[in-house]
């Protein structure tokens, strides 16, 4: 859920949108926002699954230190989505284990 208006922060002035694909599905994201924020705003809270027990993981530290939020971005695994901004046409996939790379 987005916070469109806020007593201290005011109205959200970010109007420019970009389109990203998450596990094949197209999603509208605000230009320049962090990947994890765009996903969360669209109800997606799982970023990856662990290697052994295949358990779901989502954002934990929010500052790029814990790696719980990593996903495969444009074919590259282990991208920390809490500190990486979206780009138009970005392809984002849930990471399984240590991630697959498309090259």
């Amino acid at each position, binding site marked *: 859920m987005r916070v469109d*208006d*806020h*007593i*201290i922060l005011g109205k959200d002035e970010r109007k420019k949108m970009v389109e990203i694909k998450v596990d094949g599905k197209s999603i509208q994201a605000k230009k320049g926002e962090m990947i994890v924020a765009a996903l969360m705003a669209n109800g997606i809270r799982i970023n990856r699954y662990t290697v052994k027990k295949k358990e779901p993981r989502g954002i934990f530290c929010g500052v790029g230190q814990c790696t719980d939020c990593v996903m495969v971005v444009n074919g590259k695994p282990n991208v920390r989505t809490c500190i990486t901004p979206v780009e138009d046409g970005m392809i984002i996939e849930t990471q399984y284990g240590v991630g697959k790379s498309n090259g």
Partner: protein
Amino acid sequence: MVLRKTGYLTKEELVNSKCYPSEERFNKGPIAIVECTEEIPCNPCEVACKFKAIKIGKPITNIPILDENLCIGCGLCIAKCPGLAIFLVDKTYSDKEGLISFPYEYLPLPITGSIVEAINREGKVVSSGKVIKVLNKKSFDRTPVVTIAIPKEKLDEVRGIKRLEESKDSK
């Protein structure tokens, strides 16, 4: 102090403390009440008061003391307190009702003239109230000050309103 356990001061603790205005002063007009009872390094309230009614001095951990004779009840200090701990009470509003002004940093803001639920320091609804004024001046730096009219006997108790839903009574 029970505040350390419960997170709020009781009416009795405050009314009996030397920081609370006298009934005599209450009956003269609006007066600020600074509900700040712990030694924290902080003094924006002292600097905010044009009438020098709030004293902290040095060190700035001193608990603020309001001089009830110097305070004219202008309410400018309400928005300046980072702890949102200052309120303005007017027991002279009418025969049956009084006014309480408090900082309110939430959306939606209440609408003037609407009826709201007035809460005590514990967050419990103890009365209904009518919104008399909602001020959100630039100098308040986004701390709106809401004034409501409530039954006089609730004035030592009520310190805010129950937060509003998006749909009703909102701006």
